[in-house]
Protein backbone atom coordinates (compact mmCIF):
# COMPACT_ATOMS: atom_id res chain seq x y z
CA UNK A 1 0.00 0.00 0.00
CA UNK A 2 1.24 3.45 -0.85
CA UNK A 3 2.32 5.44 2.16
CA UNK A 4 4.49 8.30 0.86
CA UNK A 5 3.43 11.94 0.85
CA UNK A 6 4.30 13.99 -2.23
CA UNK A 7 4.55 17.77 -1.89
CA UNK A 8 4.11 19.90 -4.99
CA UNK A 9 6.71 22.67 -4.85
CA UNK A 10 5.29 25.78 -6.49
CA UNK A 11 7.98 28.07 -7.85
CA UNK A 12 8.05 31.09 -10.07
CA UNK A 13 11.38 32.15 -11.59
CA UNK A 14 13.24 29.84 -9.23
CA UNK A 15 11.63 31.32 -6.12
CA UNK A 16 9.78 28.76 -4.03
CA UNK A 17 6.32 29.88 -2.96
CA UNK A 18 6.61 30.36 0.82
CA UNK A 19 3.60 28.17 1.72
CA UNK A 20 5.50 25.18 0.28
CA UNK A 21 7.45 24.97 3.53
CA UNK A 22 4.18 24.74 5.43
CA UNK A 23 3.20 21.84 3.18
CA UNK A 24 6.50 20.17 4.11
CA UNK A 25 5.50 20.46 7.76
CA UNK A 26 2.11 18.84 7.08
CA UNK A 27 3.76 16.15 4.97
CA UNK A 28 6.11 15.21 7.81
CA UNK A 29 3.17 14.93 10.23
CA UNK A 30 1.22 12.73 7.83
CA UNK A 31 4.20 10.57 6.92
CA UNK A 32 4.86 9.82 10.59
CA UNK A 33 1.35 8.35 10.73
CA UNK A 34 1.34 6.50 7.42
CA UNK A 35 4.85 5.14 7.92
CA UNK A 36 5.95 6.59 4.61
CA UNK A 37 8.41 9.28 3.65
CA UNK A 38 8.14 12.85 2.42
CA UNK A 39 8.85 13.36 -1.25
CA UNK A 40 8.56 16.42 -3.45
CA UNK A 41 7.96 17.35 -7.06
CA UNK A 42 9.29 20.49 -8.75
CA UNK A 43 8.35 21.53 -12.26
CA UNK A 44 10.23 24.30 -14.07
CA UNK A 45 13.28 25.15 -16.10
CA UNK A 46 16.71 25.25 -14.48
CA UNK A 47 15.28 24.33 -11.11
CA UNK A 48 17.57 21.43 -10.14
CA UNK A 49 19.24 23.72 -7.61
CA UNK A 50 16.04 23.90 -5.58
CA UNK A 51 16.29 20.22 -4.61
CA UNK A 52 18.68 20.93 -1.72
CA UNK A 53 16.38 23.53 -0.20
CA UNK A 54 13.55 21.04 -0.30
CA UNK A 55 15.72 18.25 1.07
CA UNK A 56 16.64 20.51 3.98
CA UNK A 57 12.94 20.66 4.86
CA UNK A 58 12.55 16.92 4.98
CA UNK A 59 12.08 15.55 1.45
CA UNK A 60 13.88 12.26 0.96
CA UNK A 61 13.32 12.16 -2.78
CA UNK A 62 12.74 15.00 -5.21
CA UNK A 63 11.12 14.47 -8.59
CA UNK A 64 12.36 17.09 -11.03
CA UNK A 65 10.62 17.94 -14.27
CA UNK A 66 13.33 20.29 -15.49
CA UNK A 67 12.82 21.32 -19.08
CA UNK A 68 12.68 24.49 -21.16
CA UNK A 69 9.03 23.56 -21.86
CA UNK A 70 8.31 24.26 -18.20
CA UNK A 71 9.93 27.71 -18.12
CA UNK A 72 6.58 29.28 -17.33
CA UNK A 73 3.42 27.79 -15.95
CA UNK A 74 1.01 26.45 -18.55
CA UNK A 75 -1.62 24.23 -17.10
CA UNK A 76 -1.54 21.33 -19.55
CA UNK A 77 2.22 20.71 -19.71
CA UNK A 78 2.41 21.09 -15.93
CA UNK A 79 -0.51 18.69 -15.47
CA UNK A 80 1.29 16.17 -17.65
CA UNK A 81 4.53 16.60 -15.72
CA UNK A 82 2.82 16.29 -12.34
CA UNK A 83 0.93 13.22 -13.54
CA UNK A 84 4.21 11.68 -14.66
CA UNK A 85 5.77 12.43 -11.26
CA UNK A 86 2.77 10.83 -9.55
CA UNK A 87 3.13 7.76 -11.74
CA UNK A 88 6.80 7.52 -10.83
CA UNK A 89 6.31 8.16 -7.12
CA UNK A 90 2.95 6.42 -6.55
CA UNK A 91 2.29 8.45 -3.42
CA UNK A 92 -0.61 7.95 -1.06
CA UNK A 93 -1.30 11.66 -0.81
CA UNK A 94 -0.33 14.75 -2.84
CA UNK A 95 -0.21 18.11 -1.03
CA UNK A 96 -0.47 21.36 -2.98
CA UNK A 97 -0.85 25.01 -1.97
CA UNK A 98 -4.21 26.78 -2.33
CA UNK A 99 -3.01 29.22 -4.97
CA UNK A 100 -4.32 30.05 -8.43
CA UNK A 101 -1.89 27.47 -9.78
CA UNK A 102 -2.60 24.93 -7.05
CA UNK A 103 -6.36 25.06 -7.56
CA UNK A 104 -5.91 24.75 -11.32
CA UNK A 105 -3.44 21.95 -11.35
CA UNK A 106 -4.92 19.90 -8.52
CA UNK A 107 -8.33 19.93 -10.20
CA UNK A 108 -6.97 18.84 -13.58
CA UNK A 109 -4.59 16.22 -12.27
CA UNK A 110 -7.19 15.06 -9.74
CA UNK A 111 -9.61 14.49 -12.61
CA UNK A 112 -6.98 12.73 -14.71
CA UNK A 113 -5.98 10.42 -11.87
CA UNK A 114 -9.55 9.85 -10.67
CA UNK A 115 -8.26 11.04 -7.32
CA UNK A 116 -10.16 11.94 -4.20
CA UNK A 117 -9.76 15.72 -4.07
CA UNK A 118 -10.49 18.47 -1.57
CA UNK A 119 -9.49 22.06 -2.31
CA UNK A 120 -8.47 24.64 0.30
CA UNK A 121 -8.11 22.58 3.46
CA UNK A 122 -7.51 24.18 6.83
CA UNK A 123 -6.66 20.85 8.44
CA UNK A 124 -5.65 17.40 7.22
CA UNK A 125 -5.10 14.24 9.22
CA UNK A 126 -4.55 10.57 8.48
CA UNK A 127 -7.12 8.07 9.73
CA UNK A 128 -5.85 4.62 8.90
CA UNK A 129 -5.75 4.43 5.12
CA UNK A 130 -8.06 7.42 4.81
CA UNK A 131 -7.28 11.10 4.88
CA UNK A 132 -9.57 13.46 6.75
CA UNK A 133 -9.62 16.92 5.21
CA UNK A 134 -11.35 19.91 6.79
CA UNK A 135 -12.43 22.76 4.56
CA UNK A 136 -14.61 25.83 5.07
CA UNK A 137 -17.81 25.98 3.03
CA UNK A 138 -20.75 28.32 2.50
CA UNK A 139 -18.68 31.50 2.87
CA UNK A 140 -16.98 30.08 5.95
CA UNK A 141 -20.27 29.58 7.76
CA UNK A 142 -19.65 25.85 7.92
CA UNK A 143 -16.59 23.72 8.38
CA UNK A 144 -16.79 20.33 6.65
CA UNK A 145 -14.76 17.21 7.20
CA UNK A 146 -14.30 15.01 4.16
CA UNK A 147 -13.00 11.47 4.20
CA UNK A 148 -10.75 10.72 1.24
CA UNK A 149 -10.68 6.97 0.98
CA UNK A 150 -7.41 5.09 0.78
CA UNK A 151 -8.45 3.09 -2.29
CA UNK A 152 -7.32 5.88 -4.60
CA UNK A 153 -4.89 8.75 -4.81
CA UNK A 154 -5.66 11.49 -2.28
CA UNK A 155 -5.05 15.09 -3.34
CA UNK A 156 -5.57 18.21 -1.28
CA UNK A 157 -4.65 21.86 -1.52
CA UNK A 158 -3.87 23.51 1.80
CA UNK A 159 -4.61 27.09 2.77
CA UNK A 160 -1.56 29.27 3.42
CA UNK A 161 -0.55 30.22 6.95
CA UNK A 162 -2.65 27.70 8.86
CA UNK A 163 0.34 25.44 9.48
CA UNK A 164 3.83 26.48 10.56
CA UNK A 165 6.71 26.09 8.13
CA UNK A 166 9.03 23.10 8.40
CA UNK A 167 12.37 24.04 9.96
CA UNK A 168 15.26 23.56 7.54
CA UNK A 169 18.01 21.21 8.73
CA UNK A 170 21.57 21.72 7.50
CA UNK A 171 23.24 19.16 5.32
CA UNK A 172 20.22 17.03 4.48
CA UNK A 173 20.21 15.74 0.94
CA UNK A 174 17.64 14.01 -1.19
CA UNK A 175 17.79 11.56 -4.01
CA UNK A 176 16.69 13.27 -7.23
CA UNK A 177 14.69 11.58 -9.95
CA UNK A 178 14.14 13.31 -13.24
CA UNK A 179 10.72 13.16 -14.77
CA UNK A 180 10.53 13.20 -18.55
CA UNK A 181 8.32 15.70 -20.28
CA UNK A 182 6.21 13.74 -22.70
CA UNK A 183 4.13 16.52 -24.17
CA UNK A 184 1.42 16.06 -26.75
CA UNK A 185 0.68 18.67 -29.39
CA UNK A 186 -2.61 19.36 -27.56
CA UNK A 187 -0.71 20.38 -24.45
CA UNK A 188 0.64 23.51 -26.14
CA UNK A 189 -2.64 25.05 -27.27
CA UNK A 190 -2.16 27.61 -24.54
CA UNK A 191 0.91 29.79 -24.22
CA UNK A 192 2.00 32.45 -21.77
CA UNK A 193 2.67 35.87 -23.26
CA UNK A 194 3.49 37.92 -20.23
CA UNK A 195 3.27 38.21 -16.46
CA UNK A 196 2.37 41.66 -15.19
CA UNK A 197 2.89 42.43 -11.53
CA UNK A 198 -0.19 43.92 -9.89
CA UNK A 199 1.45 44.71 -6.60
CA UNK A 200 4.08 47.17 -7.91
CA UNK A 201 6.53 46.48 -5.14
CA UNK A 202 4.00 46.14 -2.33
CA UNK A 203 3.00 42.78 -0.95
CA UNK A 204 -0.04 40.94 -2.20
CA UNK A 205 -2.76 40.50 0.45
CA UNK A 206 -2.56 36.73 0.15
CA UNK A 207 1.13 36.65 0.97
CA UNK A 208 1.53 39.19 3.75
CA UNK A 209 1.69 38.29 7.44
CA UNK A 210 -0.19 41.45 8.28
CA UNK A 211 -3.06 42.94 6.31
CA UNK A 212 -4.47 46.39 7.01
CA UNK A 213 -7.85 46.84 5.35
CA UNK A 214 -10.11 49.79 4.84
CA UNK A 215 -13.80 50.00 4.05
CA UNK A 216 -16.30 52.43 2.63
CA UNK A 217 -15.68 54.66 5.65
CA UNK A 218 -12.39 55.80 4.06
CA UNK A 219 -14.46 57.84 1.59
CA UNK A 220 -11.70 58.39 -0.99
CA UNK A 221 -8.55 57.05 -2.54
CA UNK A 222 -6.53 59.87 -0.95
CA UNK A 223 -7.80 59.02 2.50
CA UNK A 224 -6.56 55.46 2.05
CA UNK A 225 -3.07 56.89 2.54
CA UNK A 226 -3.44 56.48 6.32
CA UNK A 227 -4.22 52.77 5.79
CA UNK A 228 -1.22 52.40 3.47
CA UNK A 229 1.05 54.17 5.97
CA UNK A 230 0.03 51.80 8.73
CA UNK A 231 0.55 48.80 6.46
CA UNK A 232 3.97 50.11 5.53
CA UNK A 233 5.26 50.39 9.10
CA UNK A 234 4.03 46.88 9.75
CA UNK A 235 5.56 45.58 6.51
CA UNK A 236 2.09 44.40 5.61
CA UNK A 237 -0.29 44.55 2.68
CA UNK A 238 -3.26 46.79 2.04
CA UNK A 239 -6.70 45.23 1.70
CA UNK A 240 -10.15 46.65 1.16
CA UNK A 241 -13.82 45.79 1.32
CA UNK A 242 -15.85 45.42 -1.82
CA UNK A 243 -17.61 48.68 -1.13
CA UNK A 244 -14.21 50.43 -1.07
CA UNK A 245 -13.08 48.72 -4.28
CA UNK A 246 -16.34 49.30 -6.12
CA UNK A 247 -16.10 52.99 -5.20
CA UNK A 248 -12.63 53.04 -6.78
CA UNK A 249 -10.68 53.79 -3.58
CA UNK A 250 -8.58 50.67 -4.14
CA UNK A 251 -8.00 48.26 -7.04
CA UNK A 252 -10.01 45.04 -7.10
CA UNK A 253 -6.80 43.04 -6.70
CA UNK A 254 -6.91 44.18 -3.06
CA UNK A 255 -10.51 43.19 -2.37
CA UNK A 256 -10.86 40.75 0.50
CA UNK A 257 -13.89 38.50 0.72
CA UNK A 258 -16.14 36.10 -1.05
CA UNK A 259 -15.69 37.71 -4.45
CA UNK A 260 -12.21 38.94 -3.61
CA UNK A 261 -9.30 37.16 -2.04
CA UNK A 262 -9.21 34.86 0.93
CA UNK A 263 -6.49 35.88 3.36
CA UNK A 264 -5.14 34.15 6.45
CA UNK A 265 -2.54 36.52 7.88
CA UNK A 266 -1.22 36.49 11.42
CA UNK A 267 -3.01 39.82 11.91
CA UNK A 268 -5.87 41.49 10.06
CA UNK A 269 -6.72 45.07 10.93
CA UNK A 270 -10.17 46.07 9.67
CA UNK A 271 -10.70 49.83 9.62
CA UNK A 272 -14.16 51.18 8.86
CA UNK A 273 -15.35 47.80 7.66
CA UNK A 274 -18.76 46.70 8.83
CA UNK A 275 -18.14 42.96 8.68
CA UNK A 276 -20.70 41.77 6.13
CA UNK A 277 -20.79 38.01 5.86
CA UNK A 278 -19.20 38.18 2.39
CA UNK A 279 -16.25 40.14 3.79
CA UNK A 280 -15.85 37.78 6.74
CA UNK A 281 -15.68 34.88 4.26
CA UNK A 282 -12.34 36.27 3.10
CA UNK A 283 -10.64 36.97 6.43
CA UNK A 284 -12.21 34.92 9.21
CA UNK A 285 -9.24 32.55 9.15
CA UNK A 286 -6.86 35.33 10.25
CA UNK A 287 -5.13 34.51 13.55
CA UNK A 288 -5.65 37.88 15.22
CA UNK A 289 -8.31 40.30 14.07
CA UNK A 290 -8.40 43.95 15.11
CA UNK A 291 -11.48 46.04 14.35
CA UNK A 292 -11.65 49.82 14.32
CA UNK A 293 -15.18 51.11 13.87
CA UNK A 294 -17.34 53.94 15.17
CA UNK A 295 -20.31 51.65 15.61
CA UNK A 296 -20.11 49.32 18.61
CA UNK A 297 -22.73 47.00 17.11
CA UNK A 298 -20.82 46.47 13.84
CA UNK A 299 -20.71 42.71 13.16
CA UNK A 300 -16.93 42.83 12.65
CA UNK A 301 -16.56 42.99 16.45
CA UNK A 302 -18.14 39.53 16.75
CA UNK A 303 -15.10 38.11 15.00
CA UNK A 304 -12.44 40.45 16.30
CA UNK A 305 -9.96 39.68 19.08
CA UNK A 306 -9.40 43.38 19.80
CA UNK A 307 -11.90 46.12 19.20
CA UNK A 308 -11.69 49.91 19.23
CA UNK A 309 -14.90 51.92 18.96
CA UNK A 310 -13.51 55.13 17.55
CA UNK A 311 -13.18 57.24 14.41
CA UNK A 312 -10.54 55.56 12.29
CA UNK A 313 -9.25 58.92 11.06
CA UNK A 314 -8.26 59.64 14.65
CA UNK A 315 -6.93 56.24 15.68
CA UNK A 316 -5.12 54.94 12.60
CA UNK A 317 -2.47 57.72 12.42
CA UNK A 318 -1.86 57.31 16.16
CA UNK A 319 -1.42 53.57 15.70
CA UNK A 320 1.06 54.18 12.92
CA UNK A 321 3.06 56.43 15.24
CA UNK A 322 2.95 53.93 18.11
CA UNK A 323 4.05 51.04 15.90
CA UNK A 324 6.84 53.21 14.48
CA UNK A 325 8.10 53.91 17.98
CA UNK A 326 7.93 50.23 18.86
CA UNK A 327 9.50 48.86 15.71
CA UNK A 328 12.21 51.47 15.25
CA UNK A 329 13.59 50.84 18.67
Amino acid at each position, binding site marked *: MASNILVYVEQRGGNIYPATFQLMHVAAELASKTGGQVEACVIGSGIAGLADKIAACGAKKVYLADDAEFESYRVMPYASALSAAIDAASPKTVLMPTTALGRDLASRVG*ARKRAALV*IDCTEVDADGEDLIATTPMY*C*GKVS*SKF*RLTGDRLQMVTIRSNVYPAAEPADGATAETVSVAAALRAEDTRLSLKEI*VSTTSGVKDVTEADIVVSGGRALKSEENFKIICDLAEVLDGAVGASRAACDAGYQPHTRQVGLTGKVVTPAMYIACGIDGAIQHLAGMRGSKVIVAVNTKAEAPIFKLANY*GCVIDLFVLVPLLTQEFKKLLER
Partner: protein
Amino acid sequence: MNILTVIKQVPDSNAAIKVKGDASGIETAGLKQVCDPFDEFGVELAIQLREKRGDVEDIAVICLGGDKASEAMRTALAMGADRAIHINDPKFESMNELFAAYTIAEAIKKDEQNYDLIVCGKYNIDLDSGAVGPALAEFLDWPHVGAVTGLEIADDGKSFTARRRIEGAEEIVECTLPALLTIEKGLVEPRYPSLPNLMKAKKKPVQVLTSAELPGVEASTAGTHLDSMTPPPPRPECKMIEGEPEEMARELVRLLREEAKVV
Protein backbone atom coordinates in the same frame (compact mmCIF):
# COMPACT_ATOMS: atom_id res chain seq x y z
CA MET B 1 -19.69 30.50 -32.21
CA ASN B 2 -21.56 28.39 -29.68
CA ILE B 3 -21.17 29.09 -25.99
CA LEU B 4 -22.07 26.90 -23.05
CA THR B 5 -22.14 28.33 -19.55
CA VAL B 6 -22.09 26.11 -16.50
CA ILE B 7 -24.27 27.33 -13.66
CA LYS B 8 -25.21 26.14 -10.22
CA GLN B 9 -27.91 26.97 -7.72
CA VAL B 10 -26.36 27.82 -4.35
CA PRO B 11 -27.50 29.27 -1.01
CA ASP B 12 -27.60 33.07 -1.09
CA SER B 13 -24.42 34.43 0.49
CA ASN B 14 -26.51 36.48 2.93
CA ALA B 15 -28.54 33.47 4.10
CA ALA B 16 -27.93 31.97 7.51
CA ILE B 17 -26.75 28.38 7.16
CA LYS B 18 -27.96 25.79 9.66
CA VAL B 19 -26.22 22.46 9.98
CA LYS B 20 -28.49 19.43 10.39
CA GLY B 21 -28.65 17.84 13.84
CA ASP B 22 -26.70 14.79 12.69
CA ALA B 23 -23.98 16.95 11.05
CA SER B 24 -24.69 15.31 7.69
CA GLY B 25 -25.40 18.47 5.74
CA ILE B 26 -27.23 21.76 5.86
CA GLU B 27 -30.93 22.45 6.34
CA THR B 28 -32.32 23.44 2.96
CA ALA B 29 -35.95 23.98 3.96
CA GLY B 30 -36.68 27.68 3.59
CA LEU B 31 -33.11 28.42 2.55
CA LYS B 32 -32.89 31.18 -0.05
CA GLN B 33 -31.07 29.87 -3.11
CA VAL B 34 -29.80 31.79 -6.10
CA CYS B 35 -27.74 31.37 -9.25
CA ASP B 36 -24.11 31.48 -8.09
CA PRO B 37 -22.81 35.05 -8.51
CA PHE B 38 -19.63 33.81 -10.23
CA ASP B 39 -21.72 31.79 -12.67
CA GLU B 40 -23.72 34.92 -13.44
CA PHE B 41 -20.43 36.50 -14.54
CA GLY B 42 -20.16 33.63 -17.04
CA VAL B 43 -23.67 34.08 -18.36
CA GLU B 44 -23.14 37.83 -18.65
CA LEU B 45 -19.90 37.29 -20.55
CA ALA B 46 -21.65 35.03 -23.06
CA ILE B 47 -24.37 37.62 -23.65
CA GLN B 48 -21.86 40.45 -24.03
CA LEU B 49 -19.94 38.38 -26.57
CA ARG B 50 -23.17 37.99 -28.53
CA GLU B 51 -23.81 41.72 -28.33
CA LYS B 52 -20.28 42.58 -29.45
CA ARG B 53 -19.72 39.94 -32.10
CA GLY B 54 -21.94 38.96 -34.99
CA ASP B 55 -21.17 35.27 -34.84
CA VAL B 56 -22.57 33.95 -31.56
CA GLU B 57 -25.32 31.55 -32.58
CA ASP B 58 -26.13 29.59 -29.48
CA ILE B 59 -25.88 30.38 -25.79
CA ALA B 60 -26.83 27.39 -23.69
CA VAL B 61 -26.60 26.95 -19.93
CA ILE B 62 -26.01 23.61 -18.28
CA CYS B 63 -26.94 23.04 -14.67
CA LEU B 64 -26.44 20.03 -12.44
CA GLY B 65 -28.91 20.06 -9.58
CA GLY B 66 -32.28 19.04 -8.24
CA ASP B 67 -35.72 20.48 -9.05
CA LYS B 68 -34.96 23.73 -7.21
CA ALA B 69 -32.12 24.49 -9.61
CA SER B 70 -34.66 25.50 -12.22
CA GLU B 71 -34.64 28.92 -10.53
CA ALA B 72 -30.97 29.43 -11.34
CA MET B 73 -31.66 28.41 -14.93
CA ARG B 74 -34.53 30.86 -15.14
CA THR B 75 -32.21 33.66 -14.02
CA ALA B 76 -29.72 32.72 -16.74
CA LEU B 77 -32.41 32.40 -19.40
CA ALA B 78 -33.90 35.73 -18.36
CA MET B 79 -30.47 37.35 -18.60
CA GLY B 80 -30.35 36.22 -22.23
CA ALA B 81 -29.30 32.58 -22.64
CA ASP B 82 -31.24 30.75 -25.34
CA ARG B 83 -31.82 27.37 -23.75
CA ALA B 84 -30.93 25.22 -20.78
CA ILE B 85 -29.80 21.69 -20.11
CA HIS B 86 -30.80 20.46 -16.67
CA ILE B 87 -29.00 17.38 -15.36
CA ASN B 88 -31.46 16.33 -12.70
CA ASP B 89 -31.20 13.00 -10.97
CA PRO B 90 -30.84 12.25 -7.25
CA LYS B 91 -28.05 9.82 -8.21
CA PHE B 92 -25.94 12.75 -9.34
CA GLU B 93 -26.35 14.79 -6.18
CA SER B 94 -22.98 14.90 -4.50
CA MET B 95 -20.52 17.29 -2.97
CA ASN B 96 -17.76 15.69 -4.99
CA GLU B 97 -16.78 18.27 -7.59
CA LEU B 98 -14.80 15.84 -9.72
CA PHE B 99 -17.92 13.71 -9.96
CA ALA B 100 -19.96 16.78 -10.89
CA ALA B 101 -17.43 17.71 -13.58
CA TYR B 102 -17.44 14.17 -14.92
CA THR B 103 -21.23 14.14 -15.11
CA ILE B 104 -21.32 17.50 -16.91
CA ALA B 105 -18.59 16.31 -19.30
CA GLU B 106 -20.63 13.22 -20.17
CA ALA B 107 -23.66 15.42 -20.87
CA ILE B 108 -21.58 17.69 -23.11
CA LYS B 109 -20.14 14.73 -25.03
CA LYS B 110 -23.65 13.46 -25.70
CA ASP B 111 -24.91 16.88 -26.76
CA GLU B 112 -25.30 17.36 -30.50
CA GLN B 113 -24.10 20.93 -30.37
CA ASN B 114 -20.40 21.65 -30.89
CA TYR B 115 -19.32 24.28 -28.43
CA ASP B 116 -16.43 26.67 -29.00
CA LEU B 117 -16.37 28.12 -25.53
CA ILE B 118 -17.43 26.84 -22.13
CA VAL B 119 -17.65 29.37 -19.32
CA CYS B 120 -17.79 28.70 -15.57
CA GLY B 121 -17.54 30.89 -12.50
CA LYS B 122 -14.12 30.99 -10.79
CA TYR B 123 -15.66 28.88 -8.08
CA ASN B 124 -19.03 28.33 -6.50
CA ILE B 125 -19.78 30.07 -3.24
CA ASP B 126 -21.14 26.91 -1.59
CA LEU B 127 -18.17 24.55 -1.78
CA ASP B 128 -15.67 27.32 -2.52
CA SER B 129 -13.39 24.98 -4.42
CA GLY B 130 -13.38 25.84 -8.11
CA ALA B 131 -12.53 22.32 -9.19
CA VAL B 132 -15.46 21.89 -11.58
CA GLY B 133 -14.17 24.11 -14.40
CA PRO B 134 -10.60 22.79 -14.66
CA ALA B 135 -11.77 19.19 -14.12
CA LEU B 136 -14.43 19.58 -16.81
CA ALA B 137 -11.77 20.89 -19.21
CA GLU B 138 -9.62 17.90 -18.32
CA PHE B 139 -12.43 15.39 -18.98
CA LEU B 140 -13.00 17.06 -22.36
CA ASP B 141 -9.25 17.35 -23.02
CA TRP B 142 -9.66 21.08 -23.61
CA PRO B 143 -7.32 23.82 -22.46
CA HIS B 144 -8.65 26.12 -19.77
CA VAL B 145 -7.82 29.50 -18.33
CA GLY B 146 -8.79 30.03 -14.69
CA ALA B 147 -9.77 33.28 -12.91
CA VAL B 148 -10.07 35.37 -16.09
CA THR B 149 -10.13 39.16 -15.65
CA GLY B 150 -9.71 40.18 -19.30
CA LEU B 151 -10.65 38.59 -22.61
CA GLU B 152 -10.08 39.40 -26.27
CA ILE B 153 -11.37 36.85 -28.76
CA ALA B 154 -9.92 37.03 -32.29
CA ASP B 155 -12.32 38.11 -35.04
CA ASP B 156 -12.10 34.71 -36.70
CA GLY B 157 -13.25 33.07 -33.46
CA LYS B 158 -10.33 30.65 -33.46
CA SER B 159 -8.19 31.96 -30.63
CA PHE B 160 -8.15 34.44 -27.77
CA THR B 161 -5.95 36.36 -25.40
CA ALA B 162 -6.92 36.31 -21.72
CA ARG B 163 -5.70 37.90 -18.54
CA ARG B 164 -5.90 35.82 -15.43
CA ARG B 165 -5.25 36.67 -11.82
CA ILE B 166 -2.55 34.87 -9.88
CA GLU B 167 -0.89 35.74 -6.57
CA GLY B 168 0.46 39.26 -6.87
CA ALA B 169 0.34 39.37 -10.67
CA GLU B 170 -1.67 38.80 -13.79
CA GLU B 171 -0.77 36.37 -16.52
CA ILE B 172 -1.55 37.15 -20.12
CA VAL B 173 -2.07 33.97 -22.10
CA GLU B 174 -2.90 33.08 -25.67
CA CYS B 175 -4.98 30.06 -26.44
CA THR B 176 -6.88 28.40 -29.25
CA LEU B 177 -10.59 27.66 -29.18
CA PRO B 178 -12.35 25.49 -28.14
CA ALA B 179 -11.44 26.28 -24.57
CA LEU B 180 -12.92 26.64 -21.13
CA LEU B 181 -12.73 29.81 -19.04
CA THR B 182 -13.48 30.38 -15.38
CA ILE B 183 -14.45 33.97 -14.64
CA GLU B 184 -13.10 36.20 -11.88
CA LYS B 185 -15.01 39.15 -10.48
CA GLY B 186 -14.37 42.34 -12.40
CA LEU B 187 -14.52 41.09 -16.00
CA VAL B 188 -18.20 41.88 -16.41
CA GLU B 189 -21.05 43.15 -14.26
CA PRO B 190 -24.11 40.88 -14.50
CA ARG B 191 -27.33 42.55 -15.64
CA TYR B 192 -30.53 42.22 -13.66
CA PRO B 193 -33.12 40.25 -15.58
CA SER B 194 -36.16 42.42 -16.26
CA LEU B 195 -39.65 41.24 -15.38
CA PRO B 196 -40.73 40.75 -19.03
CA ASN B 197 -37.55 38.75 -19.64
CA LEU B 198 -38.29 36.61 -16.59
CA MET B 199 -41.70 35.87 -18.09
CA LYS B 200 -40.18 35.09 -21.49
CA ALA B 201 -37.60 32.82 -19.87
CA LYS B 202 -40.41 30.47 -18.87
CA LYS B 203 -40.98 29.70 -22.54
CA LYS B 204 -37.36 28.94 -23.41
CA PRO B 205 -36.51 25.28 -23.93
CA VAL B 206 -35.14 23.24 -21.02
CA GLN B 207 -33.79 19.80 -21.79
CA VAL B 208 -33.75 17.43 -18.81
CA LEU B 209 -31.14 14.71 -18.54
CA THR B 210 -31.33 11.89 -16.01
CA SER B 211 -29.17 8.86 -15.35
CA ALA B 212 -31.14 7.10 -18.10
CA GLU B 213 -29.63 9.50 -20.66
CA LEU B 214 -26.18 9.42 -19.06
CA PRO B 215 -25.39 5.76 -18.53
CA GLY B 216 -21.65 6.43 -18.62
CA VAL B 217 -21.71 8.32 -15.34
CA GLU B 218 -21.91 5.21 -13.20
CA ALA B 219 -18.19 4.52 -13.65
CA SER B 220 -17.29 7.78 -12.02
CA THR B 221 -14.97 9.40 -9.61
CA ALA B 222 -15.83 8.64 -6.01
CA GLY B 223 -13.64 8.45 -2.93
CA THR B 224 -14.58 11.74 -1.26
CA HIS B 225 -17.28 11.42 1.37
CA LEU B 226 -18.63 14.02 3.74
CA ASP B 227 -17.96 12.87 7.31
CA SER B 228 -19.41 15.81 9.18
CA MET B 229 -20.33 19.46 9.03
CA THR B 230 -20.05 21.84 11.93
CA PRO B 231 -20.21 25.58 12.47
CA PRO B 232 -16.70 27.06 12.32
CA PRO B 233 -14.77 27.02 15.59
CA PRO B 234 -15.88 29.96 17.77
CA ARG B 235 -13.59 32.95 18.03
CA PRO B 236 -12.56 34.27 21.43
CA GLU B 237 -14.55 37.12 22.96
CA CYS B 238 -13.54 40.52 21.59
CA LYS B 239 -11.46 42.59 24.00
CA MET B 240 -12.73 46.16 23.75
CA ILE B 241 -10.09 48.79 24.30
CA GLU B 242 -11.23 51.94 26.02
CA GLY B 243 -9.79 55.34 26.80
CA GLU B 244 -8.63 58.48 25.06
CA PRO B 245 -7.37 57.98 21.50
CA GLU B 246 -3.69 58.13 22.49
CA GLU B 247 -4.18 55.68 25.34
CA MET B 248 -6.19 53.42 23.08
CA ALA B 249 -3.44 53.32 20.47
CA ARG B 250 -0.77 52.66 23.10
CA GLU B 251 -2.79 49.93 24.78
CA LEU B 252 -3.65 48.19 21.50
CA VAL B 253 -0.03 48.17 20.39
CA ARG B 254 1.03 46.84 23.80
CA LEU B 255 -1.53 44.01 23.65
CA LEU B 256 -0.56 43.09 20.10
CA ARG B 257 3.06 42.83 21.16
CA GLU B 258 2.78 41.27 24.63
CA GLU B 259 -0.40 39.24 24.49
CA ALA B 260 -1.08 38.38 20.86
CA LYS B 261 2.64 38.47 19.96
CA VAL B 262 1.96 39.38 16.34
CA VAL B 263 4.33 42.35 16.14
